[in-house]
């Protein structure tokens, strides 16, 4: 495993050490865990944004299609096609 040097402000280093103690980890373990959590959250946020953009796009497309197709009564139509007695 490569060894790296990083620069941190004193207050962050102090918070890190406190957190590492509470979690029973050393600094390296804490940084690795924090990185994995960060990538997970980032990935979830990206997926969420993509989902919202997709649904917005879907709704706009459906709204356009409704206007293009013009008025009709879907309920009578589907009942007839399903041949409900």
């Amino acid at each position: 495993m490569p060894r790296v040097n990083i620069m941190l402000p004193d207050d962050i280093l102090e918070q890190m050490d406190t957190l590492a103690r509470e979690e029973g980890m050393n600094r390296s373990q804490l940084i690795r865990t924090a990185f994995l959590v960060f990538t997970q959250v980032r990935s979830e946020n990206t997926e969420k944004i993509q989902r919202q953009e997709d649904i917005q796009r879907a709704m706009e497309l459906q709204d356009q299609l409704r206007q293009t197709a013009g008025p009709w009564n879907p309920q009578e139509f589907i009942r007839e096609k399903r041949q409900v007695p």
Partner: protein
Amino acid sequence: MIRYALDTTVLLRWFALSNESDTANALRLRQEHLSEKIELIILDQSLYELIHLLKESAKYDPELIGQALDSLTYMHITLVPYNPAIAKKAAQIAWEHGISVFAAGPIALGAQLRCQAVTCDEVVYRKVATLPWTALLSRLNF
């Protein structure tokens, strides 16, 4: 998050220009789904039924039907593939309540997933209203 099993009658409202109050509610369902307050679930059968209805309406040509299907792909709706248990339950519900198997499918889906099965069809709803997980879109509190 509340889950709803949707009948094709609900999906159809997204593609039909109509002044019915059901259409407004169906459009609101999309908005709630966007906000992740609810999860929408359909049977794959509903897509084929929807295609059939759009085609037979004479309002949608193959190009428009393709766009309608694209829009459903973008909706991130949970799509449930053929499942023998759901199909058997649908047959049983259709037989016992005198409704179409196409209408019974989403009701069976609701039973299987233990969520509300939502329809816009009042005639179907009256026939299955004794099944406590069924709901009419116009009376749905969401």
